[in-house]
């Protein structure tokens, strides 16, 4: 299966630098892996973290976000804002268990057709290494952990006033590695 595995990469790129850079790669006839599908946006500033999450949700094995180099932004600052948001979002995804190597961020200018080809090929190679990422897509089938999710409520003493009263039994859940994923039980939607 791994042998025949072809990564599916969604690329969100800005219209002025990277998209034009990809055009240049074309006019320069630079061969590159055919696993990338480009979605064109005016500016990296327009690229929302929801796009990335949704792409993974829909079964993308990797995502590329690419735009203008600092100081080259057609809108002067969109890329700076994107850089901040994605600097944070990348860490967040990683913390929740999405391997950051499935995400490529790059600055590719309109004159960097070659760099675009490299970004594409490197990303495809890296993601091929990592294998398919249907894990995220299949999250929908993750079993709900053993027992009734509201067990916590029942185990807690009767409530007097306000939802605030009940200290969640979440503390124990914070011992990392506790293999609840393995637990069986009613499967989700």
């Amino acid at each position: 299966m791994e042998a025949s595995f072809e990564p599916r990469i969604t690329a969100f790129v800005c219209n002025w630098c990277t998209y034009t850079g990809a055009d240049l790669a074309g006019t320069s006839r630079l061969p590159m892996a055919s696993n990338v599908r480009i979605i064109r946006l005016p500016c990296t500033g327009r690229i929302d973290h929801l796009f990335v999450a949704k792409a993974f949700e829909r079964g993308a094995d990797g995502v590329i976000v690419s735009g203008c180099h600092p100081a080259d932004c057609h809108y002067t600052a969109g890329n700076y804002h994107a850089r901040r948001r994605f600097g944070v979002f990348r860490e967040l995804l990683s913390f929740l268990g999405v391997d950051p190597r499935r995400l490529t961020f790059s600055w590719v200018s309109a004159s960097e057709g070659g760099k675009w080809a490299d970004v594409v090929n490197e990303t495809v190679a890296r993601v091929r290494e990592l294998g398919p990422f249907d894990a995220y897509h299949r999250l929908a089938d993750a079993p709900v952990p053993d027992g009734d999710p509201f067990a916590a409520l029942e185990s807690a003493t009767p409530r007097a006033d306000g939802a605030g009263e009940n200290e969640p039994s979440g503390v124990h859940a914070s011992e990392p590695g506790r293999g609840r994923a393995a637990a069986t039980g009613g499967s989700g939607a």
Partner: protein
Amino acid sequence: MTELQDAARRLLEEGTVQVVIGWEAGRRGARPVFVTDSADCDRLVFDARCVHDLAVFLNPRRSQVAGLGKAAVVVKGCDAKAVAGLLRESQLGRDDVVLIGVRCGGVAAGPDGAEPPALTAETVAARCHGCDVREPAGVDVLVGAPQPEPPVAPTPDERVAALDALSPAERLAFWTAELARCTQCYACRQACPLCYCERCVVEKSEPQWVETSPHARGNFAWHLTRAQHLAGRCVGCGECERACPVGIPLGLINRKLQQVVYQLYGYTVSDDPAVPAPIGAYAVDDTQDFIR
């Protein structure tokens, strides 16, 4: 205590405000109380049980609260940061509210007794670890005697670090197990002083970015979005985690992002509304070693 009650009484009697939002002692821990009659001011308390971040009631969209008239709200240092957030994001005018600051020596993790628990490393709330605002800033009235340092509890950072140490796959497994239990009841959102949107993105159906089906994937979408929206804004009051009926350790995610915005942009959530939040601002030389 009387200092607090007197302050409240004065504000009500002078007609400066129509309601004082504070805490009162309940049979099981403290609970929020809305005092509209100065005679009731003696119900107001402040002790280690007063965990709730009352800034949440300042959301202008809570019409039932707004309906009571101009409010004075009792705030701990961490709550004052939330108020600063609301001011920073134009949800509130400084003159729309009177802030009664209480000096705080830390609150308990799960206070449910009739008496304030003694704070020990076991009982103190994780959020009090390394607290830098035990005396709230920018308040109108400051009451209470200076408090001692809260006892040092095991910090959330240790748990975050433990997760960081895992492989992505293990982390995904951990969070799958946690988030699979989420029912998308949005208690975390309702308890959050900074989740004030008129219409939450999860309720936007055209398009439906966030899957509302309460399976792990939809729940990931929800908690990803919520966390990202709170990046650089979350004051770490811990209310989301406390409100979660199925005990998802949301505090870990918020804590992680606090670390990230600090590491990347040297930003810690400020109690000064004039300090801009990190998302929405930028520096030309921001770190970009994650960008090829």
